């Protein structure tokens, strides 16, 4: 890992999409892109497992998609703008999908946003604790 990449790991609750992660997530993100076509969205919705089995994704990546576990998808090289094609297919907004990554329910997350969003305090640096 380069020092450039390592520095970002000091930021809590965050995975930046590095060139290394892009390589690891290539097949997952390609699957997401396939959902930009209406016909593929229909095929995926009809039988998710069968659709995923036609891709070159790892079993872990497939399972994370089936579970709609976005944090794990990101850990496995997914990037949110690619992953957005999955929650768009599910008919969810960014707000609805993003809230699932925070451990908050949608109402609490929405209330937090209406009250100015998540405060930076405590979310800047693991080593500095601020």
């Amino acid at each position, binding site marked *: 890992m380069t020092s450039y990449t390592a520095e970002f790991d000091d930021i809590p609750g*965050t995975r930046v999409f590095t060139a290394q992660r892009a390589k690891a997530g290539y097949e997952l993100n390609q699957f997401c892109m396939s959902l930009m076509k209406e016909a593929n969205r229909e095929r995926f919705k009809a039988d998710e497992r069968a659709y995923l089995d036609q891709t070159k994704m790892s079993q872990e990546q497939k399972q994370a998609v089936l579970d709609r576990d976005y944090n794990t998808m990101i850990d496995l090289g997914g*990037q*949110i703008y690619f992953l*957005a094609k999955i929650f768009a297919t599910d008919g969810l*907004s960014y707000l609805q999908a993003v809230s699932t990554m*925070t451990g908050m329910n949608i109402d609490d997350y929405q209330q937090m*946003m209406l009250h*100015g969003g998540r405060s*930076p305090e405590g*979310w800047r640096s693991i080593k500095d604790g601020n």
Partner: protein
Amino acid sequence: MARITHGLTTSHIPAVGAAIDLGKTAEPYWKPLFAGYDWTKAWAKENVPDVIILVYNDHASAFTPEVVPTFALGCADQFPPADEGYGPRPVPVVQGRADLAAHLAEGLILDEFDLTLMYAMEVDHGLTVPLSLVYGQPDAWPTRVIPFAVNVVQYPPPTAHRCFMLGKAIRRAVERFDEDLNVHIWGTGGMSHQLQGPRAGFINTPWDTAFLDRLVKDPDSLAQLKHLEFVREAGAEGIELVMWLIMRGALGPEAEELYRFYHVPGSNTAVGHIVLQSVETP
């Protein structure tokens, strides 16, 4: 000769586009956000440029995992709206300005900015939401648009400094175009937001406010910011703010602030919007 007279920045939140497309702009949640653009809409009606150079980022629409151009210039005659998974937005096809784009390609590449040139490209909410916010829902956009896509999805994106220098090079290149054209430059995306992980929902209003102040008066200092500070202080997706520095670089050393708006929340995001006028220095 052509001149860049004005700059505009705005967030390009997809839910804002959906609210416009679905007729929800008067709903209590959205009303204050859209009201923040009323001044700009009136101003834009009186100040229609010949061309907008619209700096934005693609959100996995035109650019797949197969290709990641750092800077991509739209050289085509037309740019249709992309289907981002919900169907294409019901907005007009963007009409390009291929002769100026070709001129920019030549000028910028010879100025050592190694662009990717796009002769066929669909444009997503990053480009169309700003147009909708400023021009509403016309049958055709009132001006030509040259899309300028910047990678802010995969790290490393271009540095703030490189973006600022690119903006200056765009200004030089535009001024070498023979035809008398009034050109505006828009920078889009931001402000603070994070769409991933347990830190999602991150908003930093004091930092955003200082960024807006410095964008007007002290852009050189913003050009020194590292990616780490953007992510730490503005959230993972706040990195989009590097694109605002392309806009600012293209306005020249001095700019006058005509209008500013800031609002939380627009979905997951702090909405920031500013309109600047280039001040010609002798």
